[in-house]
Every structure is written in C-alpha cells, then in structure tokens.
C-alpha cells in the first residue's frame, strides 16, 4: 500500500535531501526567535506539528516549526497537541484531532488506518534517544505500522529521518508521560490526522494541453485549488471511489512545482504515459 509520507523536520536545523546518497542532511539553523527568545530547543511539538500537517494534506501544506509555533498562543516554553491544533485551525484551516481516552493500541490502530499520530513522551526513559543526556519531555510522530515485525515508523525532531522502531519503548515513554501529567496509561496526549488516501504505485508523465481543474483532495470532497492549461508533470495515479485521479509529484524533469500534492482527474486535455 502506498500513501504520502511526510518529509522529516529537525527542530534545530533545516533539512535538505541528497538524492545521490538518498538521505536528508542538516543545513542552516531555524533560529525561531520571538521577542528575543530562541524557541528552537522547545519546538519539538511544533516540528512534529509541521510533519503532521504535511501528512494530513498529502504534501499540499508544508511548513516549519516556526510556522506552527508562531500561529498559536503559548510562548511560555514547550507546546502541546492542543496548541498545534490551534495553529492548524487558525492559520491553515485544517483539523488535527486531539481525542480523549486514546491508548497506545488505539494510536497504532490509527496508524494502520494511514493516519499520522503526534504524541508526547517522557524522553528520559526512551530506549532510542537521539541525544544524550535526554532528561526532558519530547514529542514524536508515528507515521506507519509494519506488519512483518509490528514495528512503527517514528519521526523524531532531533534526527534527520524517520526510523522503524519497536513499539515497546515508544509505548512505555508515551504512557509514562500521560501518568506523570495526571492521566492514565490508556489516555495519551495525542494529535491525529485524517486518513491518507491510498496512492497507486504507478507513476505517469502527464501532459496537459487544456483546462484542468486542480483540487486539494481526491474523491469530490476537496476544494478547488487553481487550474492548469499547459504543463507536464510527473504524477501518481490512484483510484478513489471508482474514479481515476492524478496527484502532482513534480515537474516533468523532477524539479519542484507549486502544484505538488494537488489532485486532478483525466479529461480530453490530459495525456498520460507510464514512466
């Protein structure tokens, strides 16, 4: 099953992608300074909120830790999933669900539905830390579940890419955070995205020679997102509710396009060739 996977975000540094080595690497510091205070060390949840909105929108919306931090109202230190929800609604018009009573198993279920799950952890007991010492609380994101070994794909804003990790240590750290904050082990601090649509693994070079309407989502429940009348894109094709849809991946030469992540349906102006 193929579905959109968000790009990793480091809370301290911008990341860029090295195609030849097939990995992300750090570039310049974010320096998210507001009123003289540098929030980079406290932006783990903001970074995770930025990863989550990439997942939530299929790459249509991408932002930075500051793009979350600066559009919510808590500037006293770290932030919570409710603050990420606030930033999403206030600035992007998107909904991050923060349900009560979600256990670890409920979160894994959500990931298996192709949702992205942001969750708060006690990093001091985390078995897979990316920094030592690590006596602090932290935010992580669960992006997928792998049935072959039951591991989960975890985004950690101290790293440069997601890692497949055992559930055990993630569960323990998430439950410890909930218990210490006055909840129970079955009531974690989570922010959960929408279900990501399945994408066809078939990629096409699509030439557009006449009017084509673009949408934010496939399947008729998306908003109009501009139109194109002359372009060639690399697109992924998938069937949604019985109809074929294309999602823009890049320009024909692989370079970035402002229409990345947008969807359209084939019409008489659309010619597609499998690549």
């Amino acid at each position: 099953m193929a579905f959109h996977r968000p790009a990793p975000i480091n809370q301290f540094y911008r990341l860029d992608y090295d195609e030849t080595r097939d990995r992300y690497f750090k570039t310049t510091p974010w320096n998210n300074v507001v009123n003289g205070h540098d929030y980079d060390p406290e932006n783990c949840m903001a970074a995770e909120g930025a990863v989550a909105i990439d997942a939530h929108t299929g790459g249509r919306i991408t932002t930075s830790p500051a793009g979350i931090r600066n559009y919510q109202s808590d500037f006293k230190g770290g932030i919570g999933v409710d603050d990420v929800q606030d930033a999403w609604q206030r600035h992007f018009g998107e909904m991050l669900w923060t349900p009560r009573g979600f256990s670890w198993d409920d979160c894994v279920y959500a990931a298996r539905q192709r949702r992205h799950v942001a969750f708060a952890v006690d990093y001091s007991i985390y078995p897979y830390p990316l920094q030592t010492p690590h006596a602090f609380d932290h935010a992580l994101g669960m992006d997928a579940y792998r049935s072959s070994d039951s591991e989960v794909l975890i985004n950690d804003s101290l790293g440069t890419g997601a890692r497949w990790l055992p559930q055990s240590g993630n569960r323990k750290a998430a439950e410890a955070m909930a218990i210490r904050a006055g909840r129970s082990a079955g009531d974690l601090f989570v922010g959960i995205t929408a279900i990501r649509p399945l994408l066809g693994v078939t990629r096409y070079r699509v030439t557009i020679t006449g009017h084509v309407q673009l949408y934010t989502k496939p399947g008729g429940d998306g908003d109009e997102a501009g139109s194109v009348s002359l372009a060639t894109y690399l697109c992924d094709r998938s069937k949604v509710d019985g109809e074929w849809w294309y999602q823009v991946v890049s320009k024909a030469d692989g370079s970035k396009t402002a229409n990345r992540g947008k969807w359209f349906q084939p019409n008489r102006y659309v010619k597609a060739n499998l690549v």
Partner: protein
Amino acid sequence: MTDPTAYFDDQPDDDPPPPGGKDPETSPPATDSVKVPVPGAVPVDPGPEDEEEPNP
C-alpha cells in the same frame, strides 16, 4: 535509517486493521494537554557536525 523518499514503495502494512477501532474524528475531544518540553529541561542544539556538507 529509513529511506526518506516521499512515498512508500514497500509494503508497510499488508494486513489492514479490522473494523471497530476508535475513530479520533468522532471521539470526545481532550480539554487539556501537556506542554513538551518544560522550560529548563530541553534538548541542546547538537550542531550540524554529524552531517556531511552537501555536494557542491
């Protein structure tokens, strides 16, 4: 490190979950949250030293 390309090309979950799990979209919303991290107990900037410079 997992392949960081934008789309899965492997099969992360070939065993879809059974129906009946909780739906976050219809579950009662939480009215509180925990702020992470608390001031004074935060990660330190590790610097970019563990990464390589991009190819010119």
